[in-house]
């Protein structure tokens, strides 16, 4: 099935540090997306990276994609307490259905 698997499951860092999490998948993809879920809130779309792209930036976020290794990474630079959340990668089928991994729980302490 088209499903990403995040690594690590949990990450604890201090404000100002960078946080990196990875997503691996098994099938070929057209794109890969990253989402964030703050406690008690819905999922927020962060970045979509297409299979012909290798790197994408959005503010303090940097996503890379290596289709030869079937993996993607999400880097949050200069983390803030507000970045505390669960982060998910998701693969999309041709109808837009998202298939999520189990997520990485990131805790940023002041």
């Amino acid at each position, binding site marked *: 099935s088209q499903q990403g698997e995040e690594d690590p499951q949990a990450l604890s860092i201090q404000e100002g540090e960078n946080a990196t999490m990875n997503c691996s998948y098994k099938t070929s993809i057209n794109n890969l997306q990253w989402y964030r879920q703050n406690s*008690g809130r819905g999922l927020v*779309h962060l970045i979509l990276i297409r299979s012909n792209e290798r790197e994408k930036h959005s503010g303090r976020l940097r996503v890379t994609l290596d289709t030869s290794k079937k993996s993607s990474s999400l880097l949050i630079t200069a983390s803030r307490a507000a970045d505390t959340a669960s982060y998910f990668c998701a693969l*999309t089928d*041709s109808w837009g*259905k*998202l298939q*999520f991994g*189990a997520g990485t729980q990131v805790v940023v302490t002041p």
Partner: protein
Amino acid sequence: EAGVTQFPSHSVIEKGQTVTLRCDPISGHDNLYWYRRVMGKEIKFLLHFVKESKQDESGMPNNRFLAERTGGTYSTLKVQPAELEDSGVYFCASSQDLGDAYNEQFFGPGTRLTVL
């Protein structure tokens, strides 16, 4: 513009009871998706509406779950009768139909369902 809204935000029911969850997508969004996250597990797709039609309901766990989207606007997801394993957070998402399957999906805050 209002985002995707879901009601209720929390629901606590006993095993065997019926619960109906509601999702109001962003106005004009033809695509509506239901997902759920059972405790400690990944977020799983349940079904996808295009307007009022079910495009894909392959993720519905069993026939105790019934989703409707009459008129192609809001959607309801009914669980009858509820079982303990149905506990989790149910998310709804919507997206525009721009001829591209990879349109951004906007998620609601979710309904946390607890079955005792």
